[in-house]
C-alpha cells in the first residue's frame, strides 16, 4: 500500500481541514504583513486633550509648568550615547559624498523625517515640525513624537510658533497648542480657523497669525479665531493658499501663489483699499509663489520664491500708497546654489537662504554656500531658525545646528 498523499481526500475530511487551516493562517499572516499602516489616525491618542465643542477659549493649562521627562516613553531617534558632534558619515547623509573633514561649525546633527519648520523656544528647547510628526531636540538628542506612537496627534507637522508660554504647531489636521510639550489642544475650522490644513504660523508679539489652505486666521483675545479669505477680503487677499505669513508694524504680509498680499490691519479686511498685492507681472518679483517670508529687525521684507530670494527695496508704506514695488533678487546668477528658495532667515546684517541645492549666507552682497559636501544632512534646506549664536537648519535629512562664531573663524 502506497503512502497516502497529504492532500489526498480523507473520508472524514480531517486532512482537508488541517491543510485548510494551515493555508488560512499563512494567508492571514501574509495579508496582515503587507497591509500598509493607517497613518494619521488621531482617535486613539491618549495624550491629547480634546477641545470642547463650542468653547471660545482654550482651557487653561498651568502656567510655567515644568516639562515632564517623557524620554523613556517617547521614541528616541538619537541614542543617548550620541555625542553632540557627529561623525563625517552621519553628516554626509545617505547617498551623499562623505566630507573629508567635518567643519567645526556643526554643533548638532540629528537625522529626522523631512523637516518643515524649526523653532527655538524661549526656554532654549528646539522644536522641529516634520513629515513624521513633532520633534524636540535637546542636548543633541531628538524625541520624535508621532501619531503612530500616540505621542503627537498628527502628521505631517507643518509650521511652528511660540507665544512666550505656548508652543503652536500647525499640521494638515488642524492647529495644536501645547504648554508642556506633552499634551496638545487641537483647534480646527470649528474654532474659527479658516481651514484645518495649516501651512504657516507667525507670532508677532501680541497676535498669532495662521496661514491656511483657505486664507488667514488670527487669534483673538477671547480664544476664537477670526478669518480672512479671498471672499471676505473682496479679493484683497489674492489667493487662498497662504504658504507664508509675517507682520511688519500694522501690515500683515500674506505670501500666496499670486504674489505677496499686504493688509493694513488698521482697516477692515473687507475694505479693498486695505490691501495691496505685489506680483511678478507688475514688478520685478522673481516669482509669484511666496514660499517663505521674513522681516529683518530693521524692517526689510524678504520673500523666498521659486525664482530666487527677493528683498523689497520699496518701503511697504509707499507700496500701500500705490508706488511700484522694487525688489533685489538673489538667485543662481548671484551665487546661490539654486533659484528655488524655501526658507529665509535674517540674522544681524546677514541673510541665510535655504535653497534646494544647499544653504547660503548672504553678507554685504557676497554669498557663501554650504552643501552636503560640507556636512549638510541633505541638499534641500526646507526651514531655518535662529538661536543664540546658532542657525538651526531643517532639511529632508533632519535638523542640524551651525555655530556662527565658528563659521566665521
Amino acid at each position, binding site marked *: 500500500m502506497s503512502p497516502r498523499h497529504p492532500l489526498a481526500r480523507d473520508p472524514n475530511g480531517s486532512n482537508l481541514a488541517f491543510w485548510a487551516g494551515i493555508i488560512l493562517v499563512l494567508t492571514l499572516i501574509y495579508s496582515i504583513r503587507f497591509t500598509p499602516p493607517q497613518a494619521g489616525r488621531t482617535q486613539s491618542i491618549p495624550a491629547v486633550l480634546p477641545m470642547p465643542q463650542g468653547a471660545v477659549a482654550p482651557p487653561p493649562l498651568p502656567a510655567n509648568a515644568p516639562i515632564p521627562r517623557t524620554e523613556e516613553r517617547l521614541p528616541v531617534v538619537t541614542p543617548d550615547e550620541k555625542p553632540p558632534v557627529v561623525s563625517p558619515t552621519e553628516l554626509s547623509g545617505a547617498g551623499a559624498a562623505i566630507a573629508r573633514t567635518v567643519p567645526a561649525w556643526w554643533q548638532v546633527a540629528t537625522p529626522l523625517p523631512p523637516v518643515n519648520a524649526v523653532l527655538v523656544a524661549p526656554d532654549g528647547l528646539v522644536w522641529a515640525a516634520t513629515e513624521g510628526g513633532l520633534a524636540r531636540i535637546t542636548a543633541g538628542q531628538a524625541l520624535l513624537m508621532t501619531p503612530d506612537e500616540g505621542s503627537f496627534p498628527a502628521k505631517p507637522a507643518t509650521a511652528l510658533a511660540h507665544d512666550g508660554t505656548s508652543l503652536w504647531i500647525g499640521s494638515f489636521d488642524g492647529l495644536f497648542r501645547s504648554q508642556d510639550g506633552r499634551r496638545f489642544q487641537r483647534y480646527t475650522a470649528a474654532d474659527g480657523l479658516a481651514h484645518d490644513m495649516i501651512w504657516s504660523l507667525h507670532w508677532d508679539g501680541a497676535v498669532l497669525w495662521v496661514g491656511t489652505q483657505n486664507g488667514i486666521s488670527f487669534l483673538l483675545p477671547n480664544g476664537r479665531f477670526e478669518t480672512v479669505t479671498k471672499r471676505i477680503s473682496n479679493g484683497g487677499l489674492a489667493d487662498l493658499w497662504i504658504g507664508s505669513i509675517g507682520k511688519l508694524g500694522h501690515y500683515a504680509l500674506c505670501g500666496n501663489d499670486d504674489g505677496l498680499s499686504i493688509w493694513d490691519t488698521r482697516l477692515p479686511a473687507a475694505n479693498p483699499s486695505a490691501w495691496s498685492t505685489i506680483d511678478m507681472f507688475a514688478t520685478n518679483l522673481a516669482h509669484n509663489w511666496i514660499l517663505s517670508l521674513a522681516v529683518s529687525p530693521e524692517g526689510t521684507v524678504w520673500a523666498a520664491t*521659486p525664482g530666487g530670494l527677493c528683498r523689497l527695496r520699496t518701503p511697504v508704506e509707499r507700496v500701500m500708497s500705490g508706488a511700484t514695488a522694487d525688489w533685489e533678487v538673489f538667485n543662481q546668477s548671484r551665487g546661490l546654489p539654486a533659484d528655488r528658495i524655501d526658507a529665509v532667515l535674517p540674522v544681524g546684517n546677514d541673510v541665510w537662504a535655504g535653497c534646494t541645492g544647499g544653504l547660503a549666507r548672504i553678507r554685504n552682497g557676497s554669498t557663501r554656500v554650504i552643501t552636503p559636501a560640507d556636512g549638510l544632512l541633505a541638499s534641500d534646506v526646507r526651514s531655518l531658525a535662529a538661536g543664540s549664536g546658532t542657525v538651526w537648519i531643517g532639511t529632508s535629512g533632519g535638523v542640524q545646528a551651525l555655530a556662527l562664531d565658528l563659521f566665521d573663524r
Partner: protein
Amino acid sequence: MTRSFGLPQFVALAVLVAIIWAGFGIGGNTLRIGVIAPLTGPTSIYGISMRNGIRLAADAVNAEGGIAGQRLELVFADDANDKIAAAEAAKNLIYRDNVKLVIGTVSSDATMNVQRVCEKARIPMLTSVSTNPFITRVGFRYSFRCLTDDTVQASELASFAVRTLQLRRVAILHDSNKYGSMGARVYAARAAELGQSIVANAAFDGGTVNFTKHLESIRPLNPDGLLIWGLAQESGLIVRQARELGMRMPVLGGDGMAPAGFLDIAGPAAEGAVVTMPFNPAKGGQAARAFMERYRGAFGSDPDSFAAHGFDALHLAATALRSSVERGIPVRDALAAIASYDGVTGKGGFDASGNETRPVELARIEGGRFVPATGQ
C-alpha cells in the same frame, strides 16, 4: 440525510475568502495610485474622460500581471474643480491612503494646490490635463506633466493665427483662473512678438453663463479674431452668444475647448473654430487605434484628449513604479528618468523640470468634429 456546517467546512470557507482577499490585493499586496479629478460638476467632462483612460490602462497593467506581482490599485478622489478640495484630496491620498504617486488633476489652480502637498510629502505628482506653465516652473522635484503646456499651446496658436489665418487684431476673453489668465498672457506675449494687436483682453469668472456684456464691449473694436482661453462650458456659451450677436470672426482656443462637451454646448456655432488638440490619433499609430477601439468597447464613446492622456499617464506611472521596484530607486527618480516614451498620444518625454517636451497639434472644427488643422 442532513449535513451540518462544521469546523472543517467553516475553515475551508474562511480559506477561500482569505485567498480571494489576498489574491485581489485588498489586504495590501497592491501598489496604490491616487487619482484626483473633478468627477462631479460642470468640469467633470474632463475628469470622467481622464478617469476612464486611467482605468483602462490600469486594467491592462493588471491583466498582464501587475507590477512585480503586485496589482495596481486606483484610489479616486473627486475635487469637483475646487482647489481646496483638491488639496484635501492630496492630503488624504498621501497620508491616509499611502499612495505611491498622484495623478491629477484637471484645473491648473487645483493641480497647483495638489503639487504643493505632494512636494512637501515627497510623493510624485503627474498631471495629464493641467497646462499652466508654472506647474513645472517652480523648481519642484516631484511635479511632472505629460501634456504640452500653455507656453507651447498658446504660442503655436498665435503663430497659426498670424501666419496662416492672417489675423491682425484679436480680442481675448479668458477665464480668471490660473489656466485662463496664464494662457491669455502667453498668447498676448507671443502675438505681440509676431505683430498681432490685442484689441481687448477681458476676464470672466468660471460659472458665468451670460457673456453679452463681454461680447458687446468687444464688438465695436472690430477684432478679426476672438481668442477664448477657458473651459468647455463657458467657452461653448461664448461662441454661441457671439454668433447670436452676429460676430462672425474666427474663433481660437486652447485645449480647454477640446472635449466633446464643448461641441455639445456650442453646437453649429463652433464650426470653423481652431483649437489646440494635444491628442491626434494619427500620431499614436496602431497603439492609438487599439486604445480607441478598447475605449469604445468599454465606455461606448470615442476617447478625447483627456482620456488618451490619462491612459498614457497611468502607463507612465506604472513604468516608474516597475522601475522603482526592480532597480530599488525612489518612484520620483524612476519617473524623472523617463526621457522619452511612446504612448497612444504619440512620442513624448520629460525635460529636466518634469515638463512634457513635444509640440502641440491644432484642430479645426468641421462637421461637428475635431479635424487636424492644416497649415500649422
